Every structure is written in C-alpha cells, then in structure tokens.
C-alpha cells in the first residue's frame, strides 16, 4: 500500500505540491486528474525518487520511498513510466526493455518471458526490436516506455499520461493492458488528461488542482461530480 503524507515539492520559490495526502491500496487502479501544471508529474517524480520532496513523505508497504533514490523504489516494486518517456534513444528497443528489468538482471529466464509478454502486448515492438528506440514514432516510443516500466515487474505502477500521443485504438489497448496488469495484482496510479477512458478503468480517483488535492472519491462519485464533469470530462 502506498501512502502519501503531507507531501510538498518546491522548485526554488515555486511550490508545486502543497502537502498532499493520498493513498493507493493494493490491487487498486487510482486515477489522478488535473490540469496542465497541477503537479501530477511532480508527484510522480517524487514517488519514483527522481525528485526530493521539500516536506512530508510517502511510504510504500511501510518503507519510505521519497529519499531521492530511484533504484530503491524500483527494488521495492514501484516503477514509473515517466512523462517525456526518457528512453535510451540510441539503444535498440529490446535493450531498452531489458534495461527495464535491470533490478532483475540475474533472472534471465524470467526476463525473457516478461519480454515475450511485452511483445505480445505491443506487437509492433517485436517488429522493431532491433531498431534504435529514437527512430520510432512518438506513439511507438510511448509503448516502449510503458513496456520498460512493466519489465521491472512492479507491484505499484506509476503511469504518467501514458496515452499521450497514442492513437485511439492503442489508447484502448493501453488501458486494457493496464487493467490486465492490475488484474494480475499490480496496483496502478495513473495520471491522465483522458479522463473518460481513465475513469472507465479506475477504482478511485483524486483531482489535483494547483498542487492541492481538491476532490477525491470512487469512480462513480467522480463521474457524477459536476466540477469533474465540466472541467475534466468536457461534459
């Protein structure tokens, strides 16, 4: 279980997160909604150890994860598919994926089967396995990024706008994949602009505005919340 406690993030004089509280229970898909600049990515970067918080903390299964040490988060089972993908552009698609399993590097059999699963999930990647990741189209790169995060066999998957730039069909596939991964026991925290699709698969959701959690609730509560409907669902 992930628990975020009074977490604040500052960039110089600018505060991106104002002491937020939230949690993700085991087995849940939790969606994080928020406008551009609301602080979603800041939260994700902090949870995966890339960014140190200025206050508060977050614990996963009782272990602190906000120490600014990403390798520790991965080892604890928290993996992120980041905004901006952060792939290794000159390495082949397959090497990118394999590096996702860096923390499991001794288990080559396990990684091989994991790799096969990724290729099954995104068949186009199998075709491009030997191409440098940087030569792929935007959407294909997004698939590599998701695949790379999954290769770490996370228990909690952090997905920062995974549908960005994906074709509608692929967005469906990604959300399906998220559901499947979730069904296999992985909890998911998902930041999305595509609120419709995201809420479709979510158990619960939070709305982040200006660095504060302003709304939280179950999927149905949010789907029927007027503020959410107007601002995020465009209804």
């Amino acid at each position, binding site marked *: 279980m992930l628990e975020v406690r009074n977490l604040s993030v500052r960039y110089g004089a600018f505060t991106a997160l104002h002491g937020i509280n939230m949690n993700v229970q085991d087995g849940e898909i939790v969606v994080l909604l928020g406008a551009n600049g609301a602080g979603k990515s800041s939260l994700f970067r902090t949870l995966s150890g890339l960014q140190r918080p200025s206050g508060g903390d977050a614990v996963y299964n009782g272990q602190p994860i906000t120490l600014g040490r*990403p390798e520790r988060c991965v080892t604890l089972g928290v*993996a992120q598919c980041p905004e901006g993908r952060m792939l*290794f552009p000159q390495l082949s698609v397959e090497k990118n994926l394999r*590096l996702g399993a*860096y923390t499991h590097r001794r288990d080559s059999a396990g990684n091989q089967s994991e790799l096969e699963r990724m290729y099954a999930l995104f068949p186009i990647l199998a075709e491009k396995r030997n191409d*440098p990741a940087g030569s792929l189209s935007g959407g294909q790169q997004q698939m590599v990024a998701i695949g790379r995060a999954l290769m*770490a066999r996370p228990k909690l998957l952090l997905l920062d706008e995974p549908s960005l730039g994906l074709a509608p069909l692929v967005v469906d596939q990604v959300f399906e994949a998220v559901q499947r991964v979730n069904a296999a026991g992985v909890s998911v925290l998902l930041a999305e602009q595509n609120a419709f699709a995201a809420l479709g698969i979510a158990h619960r959701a939070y709305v982040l505005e200006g660095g504060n959690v302003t709304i939280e609730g179950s999927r149905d509560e949010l789907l029927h919340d007027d503020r959410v409907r107007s601002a995020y669902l465009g209804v």
Partner: protein
Amino acid sequence: MIIFFQQLLNALALGGAYSLVALGLTLVYGVMKIPNFAHGGLYMVGAYITWALLTSLGVPYFLALGLSAIVLGLLAVLLERVVFYPLRSAPHIHPMIAALGVLFFLEAGVQLVWGPDFKLLNSPITGIVDWGGVTITQQRLLIIVASVIIMGALYWFLKRTTTGATIEAMAQNREGARLVGIPVSRVASLTFFISGALAAIAATLYAPTSLVSPSMGEVMNLKVFAIIVLGGMGSVPGAIVGALLLAFAETFGGVFVGANFADVVGFAVLVIVLAIRPQGLFRRTA
C-alpha cells in the same frame, strides 16, 4: 620492400599506442558526453605512477602496471565525483574547461613533485625481433598485442554485458537510467575507472619506448581527440580505426611528403575525412 614492412610495423605500434589512449577517452567522451581534456593528464600521471613504483619501490613491471591502473582508475573516479558529477547537467563547454583546469593542475602538480625533467621508464622486455631486416622491439609487439586484446574486451563489455549496457543507457538518458534502477553514480564511477585505468595501462606500455615528462599528456591529447572524432565519438571500433588511420597517415604521410609534415598530414586526414563524412567514420547518422 623492407622499408615498407618496417614502416608498417612502425605504424601498427604507434596506432596501438594511440588506440589504447583513445579508448578511455572515447568511452568517457562518447558515452558520457564529457570532452575530458584531462585524459592526457591522466595518461601522464599514469606514467609517473608506474615510474615511481618501479624506481623508488622496486615493484616489478607488470605488477606496477596493475597498480598504476588501479591508482589512476581511482584518481579518475575522484575526478568524476568532484568535478564532472556536479557539472552533469551544465552546458558542454563547462566540463571541458574544468577538464582543462584539471590538466593544468596535474601537469603543474607532477612538475612540482617530480620536476620538469624527462624520466625513463624501463621495461623488462628489451628484446628486438628481426625478421629479415625488418625489426621491432618486443615492447612494441606487446603494445600491438595488448591493444588488440583490450579493444576486443572493451567492445565485448559494452555490447554484450548488462553493465556495459547500463553505461550506454546512462549516457543517453541519465534520468531514464535512474528510473529503471540503475545506480547511475556507480556506473559513472565505473566508466571513469575504466578510462583512468586504460590511460595508465597505455602509458605504462608505451612509455618504455619513449620518455616520461609532465607535458607528455598535452601532445597525446590533441591526437587522441582527433582520433575519436575521426572514428566517430563513442565508437569503440571507431577509436581503433581512427588510431590506426592517424598512425598510418603520420608514418606513411611522413614518407611521402617529408617527415617534417607528418603532423600536418595527420590533421589533414582528420579534416578531409570529416569533410566527407561529417559524422565520423563509425557513427550512425542520427
């Protein structure tokens, strides 16, 4: 004909020496995007460390080679930690200037400690091989053989091992590497360790055929930079081919246009190659 084969051997030995120095540089430059102008300095310090081990401690040559490699590896790690790590997201020329500062420091420091005079580094391998008038010292043969082995090993390490892949991954996206759990600072240290150790090995192998002096690194610096650019930055086979190309250009260019112009020939080759293949010989076009 004898002269041709003699020059061929000369070029191979020189190319071997160049490639040993260039490999460490290409690793750091190509892989971590740091134009480490201090590399020549590390090479020079490597020679001095070996020399000191041999003369004042009486350590046997091959042991000194190993020890010197370790010392220089650690020195390079220190350099990375103290200088380059804090500059990891600074614009390109910053690490370059810092590296120049380090080069100044190393050169002046060595001069202060050991004086400006030339030193001799004696290797136990002193024989000369004579193939019907074509001669080569065994030390030079050792350089040729060692460079081939080290190049092969390095290539295998980068392309075939997970640790090698982490080095490349980190070079291409540091945050991405952290995100998948690669301990980037350890990998950076490792990269620098390898580069420092290679510099010391190169110096220890090559110095017996030459001299040890504080400015020996400067002379090497320009050449090895030319080499790795010639070969394509970060490319291990490129560094080797670049080294051989420069060595052959200097050796045979010296034969045809006069030894006087050997240095010009080397850089002329660089300029011509880059004018035709702006990305270097071995780099894929982006």
